[in-house]
């Protein structure tokens, strides 16, 4: 399972400019099925731009994107969703006033030909999905999201990505606003996602979290990819150096893993 030759999602030489600002400069990036890839870098390194490029919010200027080995163009969020790329944003895209089921199916509600909601199957599938991810702390799937804790809300947002059989899930700083126990909850969830065969990309500033869940780590610096590190063959210090000063003299193990 670990040696998948073709990555599910691959970026080659991707460049993105905003006016005179070069946000991404010939970036290569890849993630494989069943893998947790961490994406790290200082503020302004291009992490968010990369996510938004793949999500179709900022279409790329140059370079190529391959999905499942085939070249694709992602011109809008709907095209990203159609491919099976889901992004869980930092500021959670949940509606506080709606309950868990309503949020899970938001914008993709099951309905009959007369646009009548089919509540029962939606509730069933929500419960099943949460169970498959071992999210047991949510008492009722009919409680409004406003009553949930930060960790539970993050779990709902992540579970929503799973519900739609997505292939690649981007998590933008999923643990940034969480306490210790809740962080644990979310990291466990991330591991279970990859165990289910999904490709997971986690963006985080917290290297402890990164080293706990990631299989590989991609470091961005000033819009360039300075290296891809195998978690087992690196350490926090090496990553910190790559983040702050760029690649060390010896080129790191790009595809060696």
């Amino acid at each position, binding site marked *: 399972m670990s040696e998948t030759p073709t990555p599910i999602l691959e970026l080659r030489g991707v460049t993105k400019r905003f006016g005179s600002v070069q946000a991404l400069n010939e970036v290569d990036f890849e993630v494989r099925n069943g893998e947790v890839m961490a994406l790290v870098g200082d503020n302004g390194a291009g992490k968010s731009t990369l996510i938004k490029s793949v999500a179709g919010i900022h279409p790329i200027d140059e370079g190529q994107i391959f999905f499942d080995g085939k070249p694709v163009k992602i011109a809008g969020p709907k095209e990203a969703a159609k491919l099976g790329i889901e992004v869980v*944003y930092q*500021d959670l895209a949940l*509606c506080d006033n*709606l309950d868990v089921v309503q949020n899970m199916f938001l*914008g993709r509600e099951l309905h009959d030909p007369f646009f009548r*909601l089919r509540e029962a*199957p939606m509730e069933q599938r929500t419960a099943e999905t949460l169970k498959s991810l071992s999210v*047991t*702390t949510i008492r009722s799937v009919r409680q409004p999201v406003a009553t949930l804790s930060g960790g539970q809300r993050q779990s709902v947002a992540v579970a929503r990505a799973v519900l739609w059989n997505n292939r690649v899930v981007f998590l933008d700083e999923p643990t940034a606003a969480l306490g210790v126990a809740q962080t644990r*909850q979310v990291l466990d969830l991330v591991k279970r996602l990859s165990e289910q065969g999904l490709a997971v990309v986690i963006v985080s500033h917290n290297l402890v979290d990164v080293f706990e869940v990631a299989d590989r780590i991609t470091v961005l610096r000033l819009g360039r990819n300075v290296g891809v590190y195998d978690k087992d063959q690196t350490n926090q210090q090496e990553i910190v150096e790559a983040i702050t000063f760029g690649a060390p003299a010896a080129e790191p193990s790009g595809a060696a893993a």
Partner: protein
Amino acid sequence: MSTAAPAEVQAAAEDQDSLLSIVRARWVAIRSGDVGSLPVIVGIIAISLFYSSKTDIFFSAVNFQNLIGQMAGVTAIAVGVVFVLLIGEIDLSIGFVSGVASVAVAEFQMTGSSHDYPGLIAIAFTLLLGAAIGLAQGSIIALIGVPSFVVTLAGLLIAQGAILQLLGTQGVIGIEDTQINDVANYVLSPTTGWIVAGVFTAGLAAATIGTYVSRRRAGLRTGNFVLAIARVVFFGGLAFAAVHVCNGAQPRPGVPLVGLIILFMVVLGSYVAGRTTFGRHVYSVGGNAEAARRSGINVRLIRIFVFMISGATAAMGGIIFASRLNSVQLTAGGGTILLDAISAAVIGGVSLFGGRGRVSGALFGGLIIGMISNGNDLLGYSDAVKYITTGAILLAAVTLDTVARRRQAATGR
């Protein structure tokens, strides 16, 4: 945390449907700021008791009939206001849009003119006109991004100007068309009244049982069956009681047609808001428009539709007002109509902050506003007293909404 839970959760889930735990859950919800319909029920009872103690006429059959006619126009408008508030916007034009509709319906039926349409056609055109006004305002709000407060404030002035312009020379148009006059003045025969109550109760029962069966079949929590039936019995009973009272009214026994019209509007509105994808999207836009947009919902289209609903319901209110007076005057759409309609929705528990509330709130809020107005008229109080009481109740409702919101934020664990 993921190891010990299952057995516990299971046990908790099973007795969650017992009466005792439902009451307990309700109490917790009230304390955390979700007061539901409690203040409205308390308000209706308190206001009834107050006016009943002052005058015997208040609790009479004929006054009940009268009350339905008095509250109908504002309640119809308030149904649209609920939708606008649900997406977190405001529509200040509804008062004078209803005035424009009054003028329009009178104009459309005018005998001896080139547009001497039959009543129902005139009504249909007027509703379309209301929706078109909503389309124009909603488009400016949703597509260009001008705040709804300003757009509809401008709409208010334009509509008022239009009324003055259209009525300027004669100042008043009489309505002779019987279909239009029947809207607010026709009473159903006693038998028809019973049938309506029967159909309403049967529909409610069918919906309740349908939900119960489909949830049970899917192996989901069904809620307490006794409580569900009690709800049907209560609201069905209320319908039969209302018919019974109206049928006892003299000199014209029977349920006013306009009562049926607003009931239909409220039921239809509740259905659209609660059971359709459109309704779900309305709530999501009010809760978190950005989340709705990212979920692929066409937020602009939802906003435009909602303002069209608001325009059409305001037009319906205008038709009811014109029908009630059998004419339209220069004052059409003015006075307290705007504030009464918004107050009705807010008193009915619809949040000004968007995303929370039910369409049925329009009916209950409209009832409270109508009762105060009706009771004060009976007691011969001045408009001053009416304004002050309505204002105080509105303030109380908005305060309650704000406190509820803050408590909900605070109890979100």
